[in-house]
């Protein structure tokens, strides 16, 4: 997962409505646009647009169809974002702490 992809996921989750959708999916495993609309003060069209943003960021996907109903679920690869963020943050702090060490230690 590239920094761009991680950035896209972070941007997608910076929005409170989209975090609400992800949290609903964590609880319920899968959901539909009408079910989400019932829990949010926004239109079906707006809910569908948020799901599309989450899909584009790689966080959700359409579940295999059962009848006419379109269900969404979290994409298993969503976990990669967590590990990619952690690896990036670890290596950034290794660099910063090495520079901090150099900055505070007196030359001998």
């Amino acid at each position, binding site marked *: 997962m590239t920094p761009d992809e991680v950035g896209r996921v*972070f941007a997608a989750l*910076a929005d409170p409505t989209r*975090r609400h959708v*992800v*949290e609903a999916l964590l609880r319920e495993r899968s959901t539909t646009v009408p079910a989400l609309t019932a829990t949010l003060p926004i239109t079906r069209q707006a809910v569908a647009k948020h799901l599309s943003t989450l899909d584009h960021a790689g966080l959700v996907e359409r579940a295999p169809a059962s009848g006419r109903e379109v269900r969404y679920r979290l994409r298993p690869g969503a976990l990669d974002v967590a590990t990619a963020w*952690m690896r990036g*943050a670890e290596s950034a702090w290794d660099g910063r702490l090495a520079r901090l060490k150099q900055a505070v230690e007196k030359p001998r």
Partner: protein
Amino acid sequence: MPVTREVEVEATPEEVWEAIATDEGRERWLEQDPGRDVRVEVVDEPHRLVWWWESDEQPATRVEFLVVAAPAGARVVVTESVPAFPLAALAACFAGVLV
């Protein structure tokens, strides 16, 4: 899901504090990012400092420093986390699915 890193330095906790808790000190080692603001939340000199990194495009991350005396001088432990970002929940969910 926080990330924790640490380093031991040959300097006193007070010297480390000056480098992490002041703008002038941070300029010596922390990369400049114009889109990101440091908002200091907890100041417990010289042992504990918490700041938030805030940017327009990403959820805020919380950075906590602990500075303790060590044989060589001081040990610096830093922990960064993303409280608004359900990393841990995502990880727990998929760990449950995959096991």
